[in-house]
Structure formats: C-alpha cells, structure tokens
C-alpha cells in the first residue's frame, strides 16, 4: 500500500515544506506506518549516499591545482587545454573499456590479435606496417599519460577496493595534527581491545562484539576507517557525515569517538560484572538480559534528556541576533558554543549507543544533529552574520528543531 503523502515526506526531510505544511506532515507521520517506514528508508538512503568516501590525498590535489594555474598562466588558452583534456579522456576511455570488461588474459590477447588481423587485412594491399604501429603506439600513449600530471595524480589515488591500503594514505582532506590523531586513535583502540576481551569473557556479547569490531577496525585501519567499522557493526547502516566540507570535522569527531569509546567499553564491563560470574547459566542469562534492558532504558532516558537540551540550544541559537551590537553578540554566542561542545561529546556517545541498539530513528537524528553542533562549537568568538545565517539555514533545511521536538514527544509518550 502506498500513502499519498510519501512525496511530502520526501520534501519534509529535505526541509522544503513551509512550516504549516511541515507540521501537518509531521502529525500525519505519527499516524501512518507507511510514511514512517518511507522516512526511515529515505534517511537510510541519504546516509548511504552521503557517506560515499572521498579518496584523494592532499598532495595530488595540490599538484592538480598547480597544473590548473600553470595551464591558464602559461597562455595555453582554454580551448587548447580543454581539447587536450578531451583527447586524453578519449584515450583513457579506450583503456578503461579494456580494464572494465573483465577479459581473461587469453581473451584480451585474442581480441588484440583479432583487431590486428582486421587492421592488417585492411592495409594489406598498401603496407604491412599497420599492426606493428598499433603495438608500438601503446607504450607511447602510456608515456604521454605518465608525463601528464593528471595521470600522476591518478596514480596517487588509492586503489578503489583496497581499504587497508587507503588507510595508510592521507585522505582527501589535509590533516591538522594528524599524528596526534593517529596516536590518540591507536591508544584508544588498544584500550578498547583489552576491555573488549574482558567483556567477552563475562558474556556481555552484544557490547563485546561491538567493541571487538570497533577495536579491530581501529587497529587494522586507523582512526579514519573506524567509521567503516561502525558501518559494519550497524548492520550495513552507514553513519555519516554529510557535507563535503565536514570531512575534516569528521576526523576530529572520530578522535572524540575513540576517546568516548573508552567510557563505552567500561560501561559494558560493569554491566557484565553485575551479571555475576558464579550464578547458574540460566539465571546468569536472565540477569544479563535484565542488565541489558536496564542499560537500554537508561540509554533511552539519557537520549531523551539530550534531545531536549539540544532542542533548547538550537532554539536559543536560532533566536540569537548577531552583529547588531558586536560585544553583546559575541558573548551571547559564547554561551551557545560552550553548551554545544558539551552536547557534542554526549551526542557522539549516544549516537554510537543508538547504533549498537539498532535504533535507526534516534541514530539518524543524532547523526544529523552532530554537524550542526560541531559548527556551533567551532564558530569564532565573533561570528560573521553570514556564518550564523548559514548554520540557521542548514538547521531549517533539515527541519532539525522540529525533528528534535518530535523525538522528545515520542520518548515522553513511551515513558508513560
């Protein structure tokens, strides 16, 4: 069955509905299971598309920039440069077709031979040089590619499938204090793996397996790819960073996540110890289940509190009027910045907990809240009105305040 409002749900999650209509759709969402599942699916898709990784290193990017500046500075002319690029692409596409078409080596050779024979027959009457030329042209084309900086920058690009290898290379974003981040990540992953091992011994399977996955991914792939680990642990749900500009912030967040993971693992340990080592297996299982339920309930109420606080913060941020009195404006924002930083830490922990519980609506809500919190926390002391407007605009587009309010209402309804 399809509800007629599904398209409006799509508009709602894009923040493209005027406020009265948005609240009507939100009310409808509470009543219509079809639209609820559409919203969940749309948000899931959004996160999967947004999380598509950028795999480029800063070095290759700088080289590309140099090439562009040189191409236009040296008077090459736009038309020449574009024509050259088009020609290059044509050559490459032919190579791509060979690479993509999954030929066996024998098949490739046979195809080349066939082409050689056809060309040979065509030129037989005039000359027998054609097939030879075909063979000798190939390396020449390669040389040409090697000389061009584009080909070099392609070589810098990590192999598309080799995640582990790509973790060792710098990402598309320049790292500031990258070494520190790596060390922090490595330390966190070490702590995690030891805690995870203890947790596993005490039957805290859920938490432990999550920790092991986190620890493994952090160990094997570095802090950046801890994200990938989280994706797997959430059963294919990819958490994400949405804006391209947010990648740098994501790295920062990942360090925070790695720090927060310590607390996470400790909490699981405590639960597991509460369950009692010497109890008979059934009782032990029941107690462990109880402990798990208690932990989940505690997590939910913590989330509800957090959501409420975040909502208050965003409302107060939205109402802040900057730049009319410079000094007052900066002190106003300073408060929001402090709150935002505090909530950010909480948000990261709670989002991970929601991911572990498989609570998609909460996870995606916190996920869309996170970049806004980061933005507010990172604002300069005297933010330009444009900065504030930009954040407000993004909040509006995501309908964030309304979403937070809905979530707060829902969790209040559950607790009664």
């Amino acid at each position, binding site marked *: 069955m399809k509800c007629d409002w599904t398209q409006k749900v799509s508009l709602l999650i894009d923040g493209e509905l005027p406020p009265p209509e948005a609240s009507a759709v939100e009310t409808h969402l509470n009543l219509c299971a079809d639209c609820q599942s559409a919203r969940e699916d749309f948000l899931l898709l959004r996160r999967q598309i947004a999380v598509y990784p950028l795999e480029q290193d800063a070095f290759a990017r700088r080289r*590309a920039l140099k090439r562009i500046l040189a191409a236009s500075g040296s008077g090459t002319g736009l038309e020449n440069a574009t024509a050259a690029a088009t020609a290059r692409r044509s050559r490459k596409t032919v190579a791509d077709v060979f690479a993509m078409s999954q030929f066996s080596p024998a098949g490739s050779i046979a195809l080349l031979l066939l082409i050689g024979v056809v060309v040979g027959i065509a030129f037989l009457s005039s000359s027998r040089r054609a097939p030879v030329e075909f063979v000798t042209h190939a390396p020449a084309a390669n040389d040409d590619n090697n000389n061009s900086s584009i080909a070099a920058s392609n070589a810098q690009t990590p192999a598309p499938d080799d995640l582990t290898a790509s973790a060792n290379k710098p990402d598309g974003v320049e790292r500031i204090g990258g070494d520190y981040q790596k060390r922090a990540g490595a330390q966190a992953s070490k702590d995690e793996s030891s805690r995870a091992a203890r947790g596993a011994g005490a039957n805290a399977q859920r938490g432990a397996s999550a920790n092991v996955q986190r620890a493994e991914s952090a160990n094997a792939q570095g802090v950046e790819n801890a994200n990938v680990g989280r994706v797997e642990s959430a059963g294919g749900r990819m958490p994400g960073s949405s804006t*391209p500009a947010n990648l740098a912030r994501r790295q920062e967040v990942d360090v925070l996540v790695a720090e927060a993971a310590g607390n996470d693992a400790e909490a699981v340990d405590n639960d597991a110890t509460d369950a009692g080592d010497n109890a008979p297996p059934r009782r032990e299982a029941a107690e462990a289940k109880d402990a798990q339920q208690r932990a989940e309930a505690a997590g939910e109420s913590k989330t509800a509190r957090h959501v409420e606080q975040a909502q208050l913060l965003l409302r107060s941020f939205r109402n802040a009027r900057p730049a009319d009195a410079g000094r007052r404006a900066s002190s106003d924002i300073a408060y929001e910045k402090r709150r935002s930083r505090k909530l950010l830490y909480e948000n990261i922990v709670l989002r991970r907990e929601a991911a572990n519980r498989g609570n998609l609506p909460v996870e995606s809500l916190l996920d869309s809240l996170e970049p806004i919190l980061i933005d507010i926390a990172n604002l300069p002391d005297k933010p330009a009105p444009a900065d504030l407007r930009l954040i407000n605009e993004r909040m509006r587009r995501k309908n964030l305040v309304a979403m937070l309010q809905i979530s707060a209402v829902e969790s209040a309804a559950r607790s009664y």
Partner: protein
Amino acid sequence: MASEEDEFAVMFHEFYPSLCRFLECLLGGRAASGIAQEIAQDSFLQLHNKGLRTLPEGEARFWLYRVARNFALNELNKRSTRLRLFNRVADVFRVRVPTPEEEFEMAERKSLVADMLRTLPEHQRAALLLREQEELSYSEIAGVLDISESKVKVDVFRARTALRERWGKREQAAARSKVAG
C-alpha cells in the same frame, strides 16, 4: 585583501574533493574515479580562465557543478556509444568464468551505493546526488541542472522511491538466499 588567485586556491581546496565525488557517482562509481578527477580539473580550469570574480558572489560553486555536469554528460554519451561497440566484440571473447572467490571479491569491491545509483536515469541521479551529498536546496539544484524547481521535487522523490524499491528487493533476495542456504 586576498588576491583572486588565493581565492581560487581556497575554493579549489574546498570544493575539488566534493566535485570529484559528485562526478564519480554520476559517472558510475570507483571505476570512473580517474575520469572524474580529470573532468573536475577541467571544470576548475574553465572557472579560472573565466575569472572567479566575474561571477556573482556565491554563484561560483553552482557554476562549477553546472560545467562539470555538462562535461560528464558528454562523457556518458561518448562512453555509451563506445561501450556498445566494444561489448559486442567482448561478449564473443568472454570465455573465462570467475571463481567464487573472485566473484565474492568483486562483489565486495563494487560499491553498493554506486551500483544502485547507476540504475537511475542521469537527471534523477544528478538531482539526488546534489541533494544528498552536496546538500543543495531544491532551488539551487534547479539552477545547476537548469530545470524547474518542481521537476527537482519530482526527480528527487522518484529517485528515492526507485532506490527504496530496489533496496527492498535486494534485502528480500538476501533473506531468501539465507533461508535457502
């Protein structure tokens, strides 16, 4: 006051990676990563030659996406013609069946997202990518793709619905194979 060259460099560092990603997804995933980078660079080259300051403030990003998408469309047209020809010949020679390990590896390598996106018509794919990855508003997307805002609404919604259905079928197939296994 920063020179135009500095402004251009800042803009390049800020938007080049996301432009590459947009083009890569538009052109069919990781296999197209090289070509995506080339087109992104050519688009920036065009911008540089045109002069960043000749565009109204805040417009340069959208201008870039517009140019890049036109390059990508050319590329897609050319490629479809070439691929048709080559695939006919290739089918004759495709004799080797990959081993299960190779198949698994290949499936792992293929990005799920890119696979799903490839099934959409180009205009829906472009609209959805600009919305979900670049977080442009509908009016901005309409500007980049040179279509009306109501068409953007419809395209984004249809793209989502199509992907949702395909995703659902995929999940069902996975569940069935699990039960059978």
